[in-house]
């Protein structure tokens, strides 16, 4: 395909289904490959200076050394040795930039692709992905969060069935899924019958009542699906569980893989503790000890199962941290330039987009606004986020109104 054609194709933004009917386009790299999205959310804002954009030997660099990786020329922190081996499948954006230096505002931005506006609460990317790609008859919820400490943007004006379903402790039985004490299947059915009688036509036609009834239907379905096995990590071999790391984050990544296998469209796994205003280096090193085996094994495990090409993995936090090291040996909030990593799902691995200056204070090359990061995710998933969606006020709004995919990664 000629360059011109490809660009034209990108502009019209055909999704996977449309592309499938056009075999001539099917080989284009831009055709959506990802069927599911896994977000690894580093709660608190991870230090780009100590993970993916090191500045060794400078006054801002800190003690960590960069190491080579399986991607030629790409160097990352010495405390991510196992991930280094998988970097041929992972790419980094080193020049993500925003102006949101407050946790809640930054989290909102990275989760929705929008700055917080008092006028509208935007749906999280996960809820939108669930709505666009999820099947209404899926036994499991299509948007699941695992081990998150903070609460992230949810379905907003989309239907409540797309709200993130929170699993707090991966490996433990999920909450409220079993019949209450003294209730068996017969009695549960009796209760649901009684509820239908009382419910009648109450508030029929209002979005609240209709959405609530749909959530009840989905909850009932979830209680009774054999897919619930997905949450039982004991089905996995011990060696693999060890390889992910026996941490909530590590086991959460394993759970994410199991959920992807069962067709769940969005899983977000949280790793908290990155808000290292003091003792940044001790804190960050400990966190990387948890992150490294989990992230690396997730990439490896998905690849072995042939799922990496159709699963997009995004590693991100709400912002980065100051290049300058403060008197408490910490780093503070720094949204000006920070990193995200992406893998699988149509992302070309082993690439680096953007560059910062010698001290990590300024972007030297290719600033990437967060809107572009969101557009890249939607592009990989074949979702047209610029089509109008009706919000709670009955007005058509675009999930995304600006932003262009980062071509270098596709």
């Amino acid at each position: 395909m000629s360059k011109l054609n490809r660009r034209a194709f990108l502009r019209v933004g055909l999704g996977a289904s449309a592309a499938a009917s056009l075999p001539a386009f099917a080989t284009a790299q831009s055709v959506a490959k990802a069927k599911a999205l896994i977000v690894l959310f580093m709660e608190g804002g991870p230090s780009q200076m100590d993970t993916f954009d090191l500045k060794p030997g400078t006054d801002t660099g800190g003690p960590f050394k960069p190491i080579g990786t399986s991607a030629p020329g790409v160097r990352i922190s010495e405390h991510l040795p196992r991930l280094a081996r998988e970097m041929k499948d992972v790419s980094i954006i080193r020049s993500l930039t925003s102006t949101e230096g407050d946790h809640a505002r930054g989290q909102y931005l990275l989760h929705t692709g929008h700055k917080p506006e008092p006028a509208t609460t935007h749906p999280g990317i996960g809820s939108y992905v669930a709505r666009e790609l999820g099947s209404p008859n899926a036994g499991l919820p299509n948007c699941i969060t695992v081990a998150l400490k903070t609460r992230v943007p949810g379905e907003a004006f989309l239907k409540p069935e797309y709200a993130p379903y929170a699993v707090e402790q991966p490996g433990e039985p999920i909450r409220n899924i079993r019949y209450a004490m003294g209730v068996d299947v017969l009695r549960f059915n009796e209760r649901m019958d009684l509820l239908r009688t009382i419910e009648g036509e109450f508030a029929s036609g209002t979005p609240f009542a209709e959405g609530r009834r749909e959530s009840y239907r989905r909850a009932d379905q979830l209680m009774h699906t054999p897919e619930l096995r997905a949450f039982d990590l004991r089905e996995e071999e011990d060696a693999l569980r060890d390889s992910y790391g026996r941490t909530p984050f590590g086991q959460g990544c394993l759970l994410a893989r199991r959920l992807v296998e069962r067709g769940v469209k969005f899983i977000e796994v949280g790793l908290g503790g990155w808000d290292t205003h003091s003792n940044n280096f001790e804190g960050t090193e400990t966190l990387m000890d948890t992150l490294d085996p989990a992230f690396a094994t997730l990439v490896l495990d998905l690849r072995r199962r042939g799922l990496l090409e159709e699963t997009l993995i995004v590693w991100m936090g709400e912002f980065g941290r100051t290049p300058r090291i403060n008197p408490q040996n910490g780093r503070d909030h720094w949204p000006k330039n920070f990193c995200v990593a992406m893998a699988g799902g149509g992302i070309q691995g082993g690439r680096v987009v953007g560059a910062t200056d010698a001290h990590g204070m300024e972007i030297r090359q290719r600033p990437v606004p967060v809107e572009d990061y969101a557009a890249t995710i939607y592009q990989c998933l074949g979702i047209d986020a610029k089509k109008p969606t009706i919000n709670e006020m009955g007005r058509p709004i675009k999930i995304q109104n600006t932003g262009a995919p980062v071509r270098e990664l596709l």
Partner: protein
Amino acid sequence: MRSIILTAGLVALPLALSEGGHAARVEGGDGPGALIDRGIAQRWKAEGVKGAALADDYEFFRRLSIDLRGVIPTAEEVRAFAADRDPAQRERIVDAWLRSEEFARAWGRRWSDDLAINNPLKAKFRQAFDAFEGWVRDAVRANMPYDRFARRLLTAKGPLDLDPAAGFLMSGLAMSNEGPKDVVERAGRIFLGTQIRCAECHDHPFDDWTQEDFYSMAGFFWQSRAEIRSSKDSSSFNGWIVDDPAKGEPFVASAKEKKSFAASYKGTGEGPGEREPRRTAFARLLVADPQFARAAVNRHWGMLVGRGFVHPLDGFGAAKKPSHPELLDALAADFARSGYDVRRLMKAILLSQPYQLSSRRPDASPDRLFARALAVPLSPEQLYESLVRATGLQDQRLPTQTKGDPRDLREAFLREFRPPYEQPDPFAAPAEATISQALFFLNGSAVNLAVKAALRPKKGAVAETDPARRLEELYLSILSRPPSARESQLLLKRIEARGGSPEAYEDVVWALLNSTEFVTRH
């Protein structure tokens, strides 16, 4: 029960609608209540819409209880109200509840949550904000004139323990360098009903606010900052507002130039008088702005009716017309003339025709016409308090299921139902029932403890054995109404088929608690 159809033909009658001696309202032709009835009905006529039937006493009473007290009424209260034949009973209960401690508590909470929304200090120094909430509660209880309420919040100096009104400014100013901007955003949202923050980065896309307007508004607070003193373990906390003239003026710097802005109200050029403190000047200019009264009326109307004339409540803008512009202006002028008498305004709304309509009707007219009462989901706090009141459930320690789960029932409940981001406008995007919340109600221990509590014999009461009367009691306690004939018939048949076993009643209670009717204000 009454069921009068209000029609546009009644517009000319500013009189009460009544049947069987129950008057909805009696008021003269020019009061705010009459303005509402006329203004709303005129629009029905213009759009060819008929108002819904008047709400019966059960529906009205439950709605009023939730709106004023934040919780459903008890079965005893419901029975007493339904039996009351006094024609002025609705007016009497409105008056009584507007003066009740439960009202002061519920509205003190509602207002203080909204004023100090998304405030990072609130979670950390709860007791300091308890003092702030207490101050707001006192203001509600004393029916503090609304202009004075605004002025006190904007000019308070602290310290918090002696002058808790300072909690409002602390909420914004504690946001470090964003402080003054955050304060302007909060003040604009609550007191002007508009979102001026969008003008921070660019001229407002839908409005006549410019970037210059925003920064000159921020100028009134630019020299203010919060000073905080807290013990290391956060157990004690105090804070106050410092105004520091040395701080200079807000500015916007670009590569080419640095533009700074003098304090000026909405870009009118009106600023502080000679030796007048900036915040005092802001408060003076704000309450003199006709938009101040308009936003206040819209906010109270929206909080009571479930939807503003401008919706969301902070959605005022040049491009957005209120649903009833003349009515809003007339009510705002009346509110200002009354000396910003909040209780008088609320009473007028609560006794107006639109407030007293039924929420049930077969045909759906647009919400903005207020031709029926709106069904709105209860807030998480209202839902929990109502569950407690309906069943006699008590807060208690829970056996933890999962590490990290809250141990107390109330806390676990609220965590499940609170939205991830505090919503500035409680009605803009109501927290809908997620799958997780549905499971919480279907199987969770809170609801099952409530089911057991509801059927535990009440102290000193004779256990009722007649199935029909037991069923009615459960309906009155949970849904604040008796069962319909159809419901009675169907449910009694089920109960009989199971030999009237305790489980049969438990399952009925469970179903009532799981109904959409229970979890909404309607």
